[in-house]
């Protein structure tokens, strides 16, 4: 009888449920145990990880005896960089057939959240992840592996060794690929329309810049395309870039990290200038909601803004097919130095910051392989490949004569050579000859100061939501001790 069969299945199910339900009663007991552990103050993550390895060992080894390396990377929407990472991974796999690298592409915000939850949980984290210097808490928490003895540091510029380090912590935590430079892009077609000539020095003074912004606004353009829809740093970059030539990079760094009170005449002057700019129509109407991809399009395709303050990672989102949101290669913009506030001490200083890089998470089950992969990337030829593919400067030093990939190699990777020559010419002129690049650490201060900095400079001042006094008070009340 089929009814009996059903009955049988049901009873089996119910019994197994009961059994399963009984088991978790031990959960409640272990809870007690856990509580005691908590009171004892220390629970080691390592122990947990080992336990979990046993549990998850089976799904993690699907391909026979190959070592699986899980690599989470930002840059989901930047095909050139994906191209680079996939090429490196393929090269490594070819050289090490017993390793299987799985790269997963993310948008940056969810990636950070995911790293944080998986590391807190002690399970599910990748081996290699995108890492930004501003995520100091990851290093504090002991989630990152020390790369001091791992990377061939002689292949990197000195600033990239320092970028992955923190005061009070031993170790270097970050592999940088990109040597980002903060650029100011200007739309020459609009300048022409307005009859504005770019000065020889490629730098506007305080008064000139304000005037240009006003003229742009009168003609229906926003001053800058920068907007903050999905990033906490894309708007404040304008203020920060103006800050650097005025006070110099060291003072800027102390403010950024919350080491010093910002209640000074200089800081006040910078903010007041930015308030003036904001009132003159510096920022797009859609500042609050326009996302990072969108503002690139706003600048190069919709052409609704005169300037864009953006580091060299501009190319990642723009030098790709037009139908994917990239720019027309004939849209040949120009570069500027950030405007100089009267009395500036370092006129031609341009912030040479750093872009996202990679780090190894301490929970990895194959630290040696993961380290080997990062060291593998640190070869000069990959520095050259990075620049060749992504059209952005490389943190890994290389000799263009010997390390540059061959034309066939580039063609195989889908690179059209010569397409962006005008860009490099202009770049080399402005940031090679006119500007002096100065290195900053992007690490925003401790605890709540990071949030306060973002609130004040990314949101408050540009949108007129905070007065200068309120912004200074907000920052000072959250200074790091």
């Amino acid at each position, binding site marked *: 009888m089929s009814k009996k069969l059903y009955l049988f299945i049901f009873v089996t199910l119910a019994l197994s449920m009961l059994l399963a339900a009984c088991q978790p009663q031990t959960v409640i007991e272990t809870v007690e145990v856990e509580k005691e552990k908590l009171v004892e103050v220390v629970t080691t993550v390592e122990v947990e990880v080992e336990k979990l390895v046993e549990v998850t060992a089976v799904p993690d080894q699907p391909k026979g005896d190959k070592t699986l390396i899980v690599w989470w990377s930002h840059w*989901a929407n930047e095909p050139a960089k994906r191209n680079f990472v996939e090429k490196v991974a393929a090269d490594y796999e070819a050289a090490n057939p017993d390793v299987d690298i799985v790269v997963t592409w*993310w948008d940056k915000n969810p990636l950070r959240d995911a790293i944080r939850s*998986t590391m*807190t*949980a002690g399970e*599910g984290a990748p081996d290699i992840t995108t890492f930004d210097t501003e995520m100091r808490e990851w290093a504090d928490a002991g989630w990152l592996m020390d790369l001091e003895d791992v990377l061939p540091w002689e292949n990197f510029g000195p600033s990239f060794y320092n970028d992955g380090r923190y005061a009070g912590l031993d170790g270097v935590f970050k592999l940088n690929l990109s040597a980002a430079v903060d650029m100011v892009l200007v739309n020459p077609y609009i300048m022409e329309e307005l009859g504005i000539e770019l000065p020889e020095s490629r730098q506007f003074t305080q008064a000139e810049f304000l005037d240009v912004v006003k003229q742009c606004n009168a003609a229906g353009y926003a001053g800058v395309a920068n907007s903050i829809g999905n990033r906490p740093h894309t708007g404040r970059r304008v203020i920060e870039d103006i800050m650097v030539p005025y006070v110099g990079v060291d003072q800027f760094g102390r403010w950024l990290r919350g080491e010093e009170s910002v209640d000074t005449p200089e800081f006040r002057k910078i903010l007041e200038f930015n308030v003036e700019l904001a009132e003159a129509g510096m920022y797009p109407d859609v500042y609050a909601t326009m996302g990072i*991809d969108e503002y690139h399009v706003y600048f190069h395709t919709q052409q609704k803004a005169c300037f864009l303050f953006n580091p060299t990672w501009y190319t990642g989102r723009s030098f790709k097919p037009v139908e994917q*949101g990239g720019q027309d290669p004939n849209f040949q913009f120009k570069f500027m130095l950030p405007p100089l506030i009267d009395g500036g001490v370092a006129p031609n200083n341009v912030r040479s910051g750093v872009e996202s890089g990679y780090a190894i998470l301490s929970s990895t089950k194959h630290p040696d392989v993961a380290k080997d992969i990062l060291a593998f990337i640190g070869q000069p030829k990959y520095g050259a490949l990075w620049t060749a593919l992504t059209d952005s400067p490389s943190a890994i030093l290389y000799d263009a004569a010997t390390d540059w990939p061959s034309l066939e190699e580039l063609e195989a990777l889908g690179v059209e050579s010569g397409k962006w020559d005008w860009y490099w010419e202009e770049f080399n002129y402005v940031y090679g000859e006119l500007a002096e690049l100065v290195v900053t650490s992007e690490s925003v201060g401790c605890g709540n100061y990071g949030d306060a900095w973002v609130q004040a400079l990314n949101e408050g001042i540009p949108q007129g939501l905070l007065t200068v006094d309120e912004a200074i008070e907000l920052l000072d009340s959250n200074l790091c001790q």
Partner: protein
Amino acid sequence: MTLTEMTVKTRRNLVALWRRRFGLTLLTVVLLGVTLMVIIPFVWMTVMSLRTTGDILRDPYGLPSVPRWENYIRLLFDPQISFYRYFINSIFVTFFSLVLTCILATLGGYGFGRPRYEFKFRGWLFGLLLVALMLPPQIMYIPQFTMMAKYGLLNTRWSLVLLYTAMALPVSTYLMATYFSQLPGELEDAARIDGCNDFSMFWRVMLPLTLPALSTVILINSLHFWNELLLAVTMVTEPTMRTLPAAMMMFVGEHSADYAIGAASLVTAMVPVLILYLFLSDRFIEGLTTGALKG
């Protein structure tokens, strides 16, 4: 007999009639306005999903000259996007959560609903169960997260199945218990004379009678499971394991400048529910109504 007929009968003069017509027209206009407000976002979204982003940027409100179904094809099957996976995940999670919920809620509902199983603290226990209706999910999810981590369930669809079931149990059990309690006791007596034990009484006699309540339970819960976001983004960080709402949020974040395909992803996630609703709108409304008013 409705009140409107009644007023017409009692006040049969022309002025009143004219006023009524005018009032009714005005009312209809207002109500259609409300309806438009509800419908327009859906229409706009659908139209956008059939255009190219370039078109949209030029004119956000134009109609597509030729509907571009490529957006959907790219969304679902482009190997870099593969949206269909998230459908599979969502269906998996919804289905197994429903099975588990139904088993636990019918058993529990029977135990709580029938007078035969009354015991001293039953009402008290039941009250405890219902307190959960007032719990904001935030009060549970940090420990739930550590619990899932401890048992290696993080980043699996099962973690969502387990937690969704927990979330759905109070209302579901309540509905089932109420329904079971309304069935006449004579049924039990008759079945007992036939020699049924308690389980076969539940399984063969009572359960078939509760199909309306059970279908309500299934309907309400499948909707919640299909749309849930908070747990879905917290428990599952592995991209291939995401459910539709989580995937959609990530996807639109990654492609924030590509409005066309973003809109296509929204429409795709919505379509299954909408189709069901078109055919079963009364069942939906009724189900969710009883769910709330009784729960």
